């Protein structure tokens, strides 16, 4: 499996926006772009999401977009769910998938420790050697 892929290519900004709309709707929260974060995040996402990149860089892009807060509410699970789906598609053994997904989720959520970030980078580096 190649470490460098266009992991985020299927997720257009339209999909990102619709995902946030669904998540807000589920909690009766306002789905609305922010005045200070939306345009910068949209530009960043659209300029990068189709680019082949290492998996850890894809996670980092999701983390940055989460931090930029393009929407008023539920930015965290908007981007964490994208990376969770990317990891699901790696079809790892169930226990490993759970750990890898947790590490990536912590990074995107902005709560990862240095140890977790290092463990995730180590996993990403191992992708080139997998079948």
């Amino acid at each position: 499996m190649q470490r460098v892929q266009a992991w985020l290519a299927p997720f257009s900004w339209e999909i990102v926006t619709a995902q946030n709309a669904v998540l807000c709707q589920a909690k009766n929260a306002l789905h609305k772009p922010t005045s200070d974060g939306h345009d910068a995040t949209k530009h960043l996402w659209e300029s990068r999401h189709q680019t082949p990149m290492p998996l850890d860089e894809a996670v980092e892009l999701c983390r940055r977009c989460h931090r930029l807060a393009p929407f008023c509410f539920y930015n965290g699970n908007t981007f964490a769910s994208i990376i969770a789906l990317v990891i699901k598609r790696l079809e790892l053994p169930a226990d490993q998938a759970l750990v890898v997904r947790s590490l990536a989720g912590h990074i995107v959520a902005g709560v990862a420790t240095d140890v977790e970030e290092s463990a995730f980078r180590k996993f990403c580096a191992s992708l080139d050697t997998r079948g």
Partner: protein
Amino acid sequence: MKPAIDPKLLNDPLFRELMAEGLAMQDRFSAEPVYAKTGRGHLKSAGVAELARLKAARGAKKKKD
């Protein structure tokens, strides 16, 4: 506010899978943009139940083999 979502997207298998992922983890995240405001995110622990279940299943499989 009930936003209009393109019906085509609602029938897209990728988007449907993404919705399911997002909704399943919804309660672990804060609605507010805490990370943008404070530089530190927020995520409730998922607990260890899932890991325990997987370990138990693996243990049972080993025993069977």
